[in-house]
């Protein structure tokens, strides 16, 4: 479904992604594991096209700060230069890190905004399936998103991505800052989405423990470079991974 080949992303002279390659097959949950500033967000932004948008905006102002090399093949088509809104139309939807919601809109309005590309009835249907997945959100639907807890905001952020209608769902650190209990709820929901909603998922994480049991494959990233890859089970057995990403 998705093949990344030798992706390089520079911010000025700093190399944020260095010759990174990965593959995602239909129906998989793929993890990208790396510590802070390893390049996870840069990868997610490259996949969703945000990096292209950032580059376009820099260029307009006359700067050339961001450079992207390499290929991103989505169902065989190279999408490196495709802008974010067109990638969304192809079914690639990103939920950004730190549970991005519109803080001054209610939960329901957030979900409605996410339905921008859809017909009214489709949006209504999508919103009720989000409430089915995260029943807690339904009780909070009139609450301003800015007043939700971190966990609730994360559920809302995933819910918004779902309303958009992803075939490939990108989740950037969906477990960041959540309590273990909420982390488990979010991970369970992700597995359900794959199993019942036939959505392919790429998620990034700093800590491997909560996600390794559910991912089909993991890519360990350090300083923008791929250092190790394997199935969730293989990675779990690897002593280096144990010491580096099971701490805390």
């Amino acid at each position, binding site marked *: 479904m998705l093949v990344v080949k030798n992706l390089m992303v520079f911010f000025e002279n700093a190399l944020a992604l260095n010759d990174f390659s990965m593959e995602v097959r239909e129906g998989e949950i793929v993890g990208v594991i790396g510590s802070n500033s390893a390049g996870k967000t840069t990868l997610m932004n490259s996949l969703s096209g945000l990096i292209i948008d950032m580059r376009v905006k820099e260029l307009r102002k006359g700067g050339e700060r961001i450079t992207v090399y390499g290929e991103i093949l989505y169902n065989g088509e190279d999408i490196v230069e495709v802008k974010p809104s067109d990638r969304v139309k192809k079914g690639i939807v990103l939920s950004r890190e730190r549970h991005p919601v519109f803080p001054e*809109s209610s939960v329901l309005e957030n979900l409605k905004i996410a339905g921008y590309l859809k017909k009214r009835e489709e949006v209504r249907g999508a919103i009720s399936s989000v409430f089915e997945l995260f029943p807690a959100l339904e009780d909070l639907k009139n609450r301003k998103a800015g007043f939700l807890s971190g966990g609730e905001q994360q559920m809302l952020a995933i819910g918004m991505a779902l309303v958009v209608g992803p075939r490939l769902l990108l989740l950037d650190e969906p477990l960041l800052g959540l309590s273990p209990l909420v982390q488990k709820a979010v991970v369970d929901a992700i597995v359900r989405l794959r199993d019942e909603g036939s959505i392919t998922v790429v998620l990034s994480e700093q800590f491997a423990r909560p996600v390794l049991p559910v991912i089909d494959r993991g890519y360990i990233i350090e300083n923008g470079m791929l250092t190790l890859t394997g199935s969730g089970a293989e990675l779990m057995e690897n002593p280096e991974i144990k010491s580096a990403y099971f701490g805390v």
Partner: protein
Amino acid sequence: MFLGTVVYAVINSVILMLMAIGFNLTFGISGVANFAHGALYILSAYVSWMLLNMLGLPFFISALFSILITTLVGALMYRFVLIRVRGQVLSEVIATFGIGLAILELFRYLGFVGFEYTLPVFIDTSFFVAGVYVDMQRILIVVLGAVLVFGLWLFTHHTSLGLAFRGIAQDERTALTLGIDTDWIATLSVSLGAGLAALAATIIIPLGSISPGEGYDVLIKALAVCIIGGLGSTGGVIVASFIIGFAERFTDSYISSHWTMIVSLAAILIVLTMKPSGLFGKQKELEERI
């Protein structure tokens, strides 16, 4: 005298609100400070005037075309100029003010000055309200103001485009991830602001005449209202329009029209010393903003 002053103060307030609401909407959605706002207001009036007097089109057709043309000019301004400087406030201000200056001074250079440059009132009649005569045009202004505020509220809360406006106003990058093409929405926000300036001109100009100087006045009034209200806040625009609108009319009636400008400026200073970000500053609710 008191009731009559109140009636005219309300009308004056709604006029200020109509002048400011487009500027405010553009700023609230895309953060673009469009200093060509007053020039667009005057441009639409001249276009209307030309269609009416040079081509002999009926007034309402001329008005409709001039609103559409002004809306298009707003979109072109974004696509060709603002898109490059977006986010750099000073460059935005200089670029848009320059465009406005060019438009206004072109009309002055071409000699479009004088009392014959005006637009007709919609319906020529008047009523006796609260002890004073009020003409139909002023009543229509108040009605239009109310309808517009309600319509904008409906639009931003109940249409997918309006909701996208609310999204991009809060977080542009998150809006992008939802498939909202933020450049397109920003284009629309500038053109919608321009269209609102044209709509305001269509209904307000019949009370006076069209002149390049009026373009600068409208810009200054819009800025004053938006700064008092807290840039970007619709609730703020309404409240601020009424503060300035009432201050002006009551000064006129009870002190002297020489003091009108000073009292308005004093109102601005007082609000800003008490609340530097305006009555409904950015930190406040989006609910108030668009």
